[in-house]
């Protein structure tokens, strides 16, 4: 597969890792870099990159998994909607399996009779609304900057077609707000010491927003940011670039992913998002709590397509599964192995928390790619 396989060369990866090992020697402390995106977390686990990297480099998993950061309360609201007669709730695959309060997922609600449909594209929801005019079709929209433009296009189409049975339950969130929240989080400033030395910046999110929005973090928090692709060599190259920035005392935004990311991003997509959406004053994230100006809602002009308005949805108080550590995992202060439920009661087949559902979630990535390796080392140590 062109533009993918070239970046999976194991020989090159080992050579690159050797360069990192040779250069990551400038400090007494390990170099600690957070990969914001779940896509990177997945690649790191899948290709065993942590085994290639020297102990002087630590990768810390961030909250960039759209399914993982959606709080239980929003899942509960979606389930309640889907249970109302006459409503068809459309959503992307992974979301169906996330447990809400009392462990009920959309999939379970569907089995119990709710009309929940899995879609591939936001346009599928529009097609459904046209095909079934007697039903109220609600698009349960989630995701970072990559999935927002498709939702915006769906809303504009619905407006143009004057669809009266289509609405969006909007849960779109913003990457820069989450990064800022992490940088300001007291967890990371234990004993007044900031424990992150830089960021592996989002890949696909940056195709939309560009590399410019990160300039603020690089300057304000004196942290280097390297935007990287999702293939293993992309990630290793980004780590080397970060090590070099730290060694040279620089904190700049660099772009390893020039083949897909430009400084300004996708202007057409940004324009359409700005036409349809506006900022929410605050939004709750799993793990990060309420983050100011971190999410979007439909503008009043498109208010008739806002499911929260049409169905009078009010915020519920959701409850995480007792014992689930997703919140701490998403902030990067715990790893899945710190969770007592991991691999025992919580597996991808029967997830207890959102981080075990999506392949981009840290718990799922650990379970899928690391348990055997870890099992092997534990045995040999015993």
């Amino acid at each position, binding site marked *: 597969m062109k533009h993918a396989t070239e970046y999976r060369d194991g020989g090159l990866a080992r050579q690159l890792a050797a360069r990192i090992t040779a250069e990551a020697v400038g400090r007494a402390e390990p170099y600690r870099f957070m990969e914001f995106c779940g*896509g990177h977390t997945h690649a790191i686990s899948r290709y065993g990159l942590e085994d290639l990297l020297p102990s002087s480099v630590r990768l810390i998993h961030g909250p960039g998994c759209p399914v993982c950061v959606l709080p239980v309360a929003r899942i509960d609201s979606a389930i309640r909607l889907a249970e109302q007669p006459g409503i068809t709730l459309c959503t992307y695959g992974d979301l169906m399996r996330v447990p809400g309060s009392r462990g009920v997922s959309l999939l379970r609600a569907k089995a119990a009779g709710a009309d929940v449909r899995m879609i591939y594209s936001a346009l599928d929801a529009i097609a459904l609304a046209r095909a079934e005019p007697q039903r109220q079709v609600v698009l349960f929209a989630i995701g970072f900057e990559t999935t927002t433009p498709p939702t915006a296009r769906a809303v504009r189409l619905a407006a143009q077609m004057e669809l009266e049975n289509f609405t969006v339950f909007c849960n779109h969130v913003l990457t820069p707000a989450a990064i800022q929240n992490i940088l300001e989080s007291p967890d990371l400033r234990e004993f007044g010491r900031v424990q992150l030395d830089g960021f592996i910046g989002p890949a696909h999110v940056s195709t939309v927003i560009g590399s410019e929005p990160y300039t603020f973090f690089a300057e304000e928090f004196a942290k280097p940011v390297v935007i990287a692709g999702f293939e293993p060599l992309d990630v290793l190259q980004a780590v080397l670039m970060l090590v070099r920035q730290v060694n040279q005392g620089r904190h700049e*935004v660099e772009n390893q992913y020039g083949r897909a990311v430009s400084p300004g991003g996708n202007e057409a997509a940004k324009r359409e998002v700005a036409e349809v959406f506006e900022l929410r004053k605050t939004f709750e994230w799993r793990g990060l709590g309420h983050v100011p100006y971190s999410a979007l809602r439909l503008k009043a002009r498109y208010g008739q397509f806002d499911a929260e308005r049409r169905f009078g949805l009010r915020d519920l108080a959701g409850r995480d599964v007792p014992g689930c550590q997703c919140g701490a995992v998403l902030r990067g202060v715990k790893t899945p192995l710190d969770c007592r439920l991991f691999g025992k009661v919580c597996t991808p087949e029967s997830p207890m928390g959102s981080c075990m559902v999506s392949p981009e979630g840290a718990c799922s990535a650990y379970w899928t790619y690391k348990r055997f390796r870890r099992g092997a080392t534990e045995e040999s140590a015993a």
Partner: protein
Amino acid sequence: MCLAVPGKIIEIIIEDPLLPAARVDFGGVVKEISLAYTPHARPGDYVLTHVGFALTVIDEHEAARTLEALREVAAGVGSAAGREWAPAR
């Protein structure tokens, strides 16, 4: 939701400005993808897509530069200055 691989545009099937669409090949799996945000994409181009929409066209020139830089540094030829790694533009 974000683990998209680049797909190759086989043909443009709808030119409508609100709903332009193409058939895109993802390593053998062909899907209909909206070109709403990459209206200039043409057959033969590789696009990164999310939930049915192409968000960017892969820049072949930049891809070649990144690969070359990767090989050089892996071989120990590249300088430690970091400039050769397709720096921020």
